[in-house]
């Protein structure tokens, strides 16, 4: 075949030309390859005149293939594909060789660098001959949106999308939306009451005509692709008829069975077997915890049914399985707090007055287990001294290396609340004080001015073994004070552990269900850490809030809004073009060995029993190429990454020797 290839080398100013001899390489390309019709080099190929060079040559010289040797294809492949398309050449008949990131920026010897550049260019020239023209795959976008997680990020996104006119299904596994923010007492730095600022949004979600709230529900299965997902949701049986329940909560009041509330009250208080998690719950309907309900476990009771004024209790109610057609999905599943029992040196779970951050939040909350009073475990004594330990489980190579972002502000907030409620002496044990956002540093100064003591040092141990009279009956915080340069033992009545934020225990499984993955530290992975924090590598699936990494409430709200904007944009466009890089089975060559069938994580490969061939669904295929490599018969073709293309590229890469021939 005689293709007419245009080869363009970019100087990139002196970024490439300063190391690689682009003039010589450009001349070499013209002279060495008969299939190269024209070879040029130019200062900045990505500029308008640079692109026009390509367009002009395509039109005037009838080029059938284009190779550009410049920066990374991740930067400018779309740019040059665009130039080809404008000139009438299919954009997939283009190849790019990266001679900047892979050659000029990483090699010092100029001759060797030029040789390596030539090798990469020859690889591209040999490969591009086998490129096929491809058309992008257009898919329609269903306007319905699924949001998983009813915390503040999910709530924000739901409201913005619903306000724009599209329909949202908000799935939440707990009986009420609100997430962790509903558990907090006051929020930093404004010391707004958390419930007061959150409940109006929760109520708006509950009453919005464009939001279908599915609480006490879980996503079971996700199939399909962007714009065309089919999601199976299990709406668990509350055992309450929602159309009859008025939310009067007589059932909760009369229920005789008490259960330790390990979720909302973090184990500090009880709830009933039929309950709403907190008074401002949305929706207002209670649920029956069948694992602890006397009727479901032993067949007796039914007191709730007896007292319900509207006959809304339905013990026979079954789970409902819903199949939803969804266009875009947002995961805002939040975080789990670090289990402080993993650090036995701090005595949590053994020493009664060592508590976690979430437990302290519930304690200071006026509707919490102690009606807002800060008390020791005996339920009556007010502490006269409190130690607050920062970075418990964070910034620690034994547990989590990352910083949990909010604990310094949270610990300062606790110091303030402790002062306000008890007048106790408060000591914060810190490594660094991280107060970067708006008004945070001012908050820190305020807490210092209030008389809080700050000791810089990572606490070694919290113990109740006294060494002197004044330590008797106290908790002793043993710490190396780095500013004083000495060990200190500081006796306190109560210790609060600012626990790390960790990814949800099932983050990996949940991610897998939706076709996205987690990073090494467990948080869901975004498309680009700086420039694209809410999209993921899977089109149509977005992430927001703490599911993406620890962050404060303003940042969670911002991410929820950002994801909503993206989704609204997609819905407005109505359709989108997908890259046509995917696998395709040549049915004549398939011998039905079915080696490929189990290889696809996206379930894109099926076996047709009638035709007795394996088939790839192009809409589900993500183009990884694993099945292409695995097929023993070579029956699966990988478009744009075919065997012919890659073999030719390998050969081309190896034609150019390491060093130039000596004359």
């Amino acid at each position: 075949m005689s293709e007419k290839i245009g080869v363009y080398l970019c100087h990139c100013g002196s970024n490439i030309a300063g190391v690689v001899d682009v003039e010589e390489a450009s001349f070499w390309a013209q002279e060495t390859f008969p299939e190269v019709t024209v070879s040029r080099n130019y200062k900045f190929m990505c500029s308008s005149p640079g692109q026009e060079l390509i367009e002009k040559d395509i039109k005037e010289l009838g080029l059938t293939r284009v190779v550009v040797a410049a920066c990374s294809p991740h930067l400018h492949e779309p740019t040059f594909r665009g130039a080809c398309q404008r000139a009438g050449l299919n954009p997939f008949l283009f190849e790019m060789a990266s001679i900047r990131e892979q050659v000029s920026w990483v090699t010092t010897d100029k001759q060797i660098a030029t040789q390596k550049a030539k090798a990469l260019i020859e690889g591209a020239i040999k490969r591009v001959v086998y490129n096929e023209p491809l058309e992008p795959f257009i898919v329609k976008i269903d306007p319905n949106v699924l949001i998983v997680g009813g915390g503040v990020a999910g709530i924000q996104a739901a409201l913005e999308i619903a306000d724009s006119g599209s329909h949202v299904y908000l799935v939440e596994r707990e009986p009420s939306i609100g997430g962790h923010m509903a558990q907090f007492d006051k929020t930093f730095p404004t010391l707004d009451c958390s419930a007061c600022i959150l409940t109006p949004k929760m109520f708006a979600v509950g009453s919005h005509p464009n939001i279908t709230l599915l609480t006490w529900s879980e996503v079971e299965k996700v199939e399909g692709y962007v714009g065309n997902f089919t999601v199976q949701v299990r709406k668990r049986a509350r055992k309450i008829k929602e159309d009859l329940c008025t939310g009067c909560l007589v059932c909760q009041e009369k229920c005789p069975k008490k259960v330790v509330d390990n979720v909302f009250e973090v184990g500090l208080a009880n709830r009933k077997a039929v309950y709403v998690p907190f008074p401002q719950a949305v929706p207002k309907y209670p649920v029956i915890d069948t694992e602890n309900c006397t009727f479901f476990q032993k067949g007796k009771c039914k007191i709730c049914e007896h007292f319900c004024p509207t006959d809304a209790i339905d013990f026979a109610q079954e789970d409902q399985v819903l199949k939803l057609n969804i266009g875009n999905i947002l995961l805002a599943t939040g975080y789990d707090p670090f289990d402080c029992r993993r650090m036995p040196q701090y005595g949590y779970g053994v020493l009664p007055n060592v508590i976690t951050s979430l437990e302290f939040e519930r304690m200071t909350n006026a509707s919490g287990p102690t009606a807002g009073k800060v008390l020791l475990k005996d339920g009556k004594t007010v502490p006269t001294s409190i130690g607050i330990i920062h970075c418990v489980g964070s910034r620690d190579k034994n547990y989590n290396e990352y910083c949990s972002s909010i604990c310094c502000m949270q610990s300062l907030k606790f110091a303030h609340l402790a002062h306000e409620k008890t007048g106790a002496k408060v000591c914060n044990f810190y490594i660094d004080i991280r107060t970067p956002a708006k008004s945070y540093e001012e908050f820190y100064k305020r807490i210092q001015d209030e008389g809080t003591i700050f000791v810089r040092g990572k606490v070694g141990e919290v113990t109740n073994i006294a060494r002197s009279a004044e330590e008797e009956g106290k908790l002793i915080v043993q710490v190396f004070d780095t500013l004083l340069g000495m060990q200190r033992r500081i006796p306190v009545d109560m210790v609060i552990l600012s626990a790390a934020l960790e990814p949800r225990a099932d983050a990996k499984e949940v991610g897998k269900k939706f076709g996205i993955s987690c990073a090494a530290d467990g948080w869901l992975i975004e498309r680009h850490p700086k420039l694209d924090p809410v999209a993921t590598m899977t089109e149509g699936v977005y992430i927001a809030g703490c599911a993406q990494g620890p962050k404060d409430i303003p940042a969670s709200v911002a991410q929820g809004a950002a994801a909503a904007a993206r989704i609204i944009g997609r819905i407005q466009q109505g359709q989108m073009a997908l890259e046509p890089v995917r696998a395709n089975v040549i049915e004549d060559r398939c011998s039905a060995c079915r080696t490929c069938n189990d290889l696809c994580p996206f379930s894109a490969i099926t076996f047709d029993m009638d035709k007795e061939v394996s088939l790839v669904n192009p809409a589900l295929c993500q183009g990884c190429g694993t099945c292409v490599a695995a097929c023993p018969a070579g029956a699966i073709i990988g478009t744009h990454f075919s065997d012919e293309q890659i073999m030719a590229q390998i050969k081309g890469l190896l034609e150019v020797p390491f060093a130039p021939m000596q004359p």
Partner: protein
Amino acid sequence: MAETEKNRFEPVIVGFTCNWCSYRAADAAGMGRMKYAPNVRLIRLMCSGRTDPQFVLKAIAEGADGVMITGCHPGDCHYIDQNYKTMRRYELLRRTLIQMGLEPGRLNLVWASAAESQILAEEISKFVEQVRALGPLHWPKWEQASANERASGKEAA
């Protein structure tokens, strides 16, 4: 590090990278201006799972002194778990190549995430030294082999 002494053997190595992790790591190494051995010529695939063992054989047949396969860390694959398939394939390939007489040090598998540019650069340089120590791979290229056989009058095998 890239200065070559006269007469020192310089291996030529083909590296397969995956679009999402290791290729981005190579890009990041470039942006960080990290200098590493220029002996490795990279091919971009969408996933390490696309690496057909035939590609490795082709590279060796065409004159490569070593071959490197790189991809995302297990558990972090952009296509969920295709790099596990790469791992399995690599193990079988390695054993096959050893039986064919290839020194095991000429084949390498490296996991590097997009943020691990330093690690990728170091692995590349380390592998180059490893292959350099083994010397050139004296397997004639296909065409050369057939030309040799035609010239000596024997039939091509």
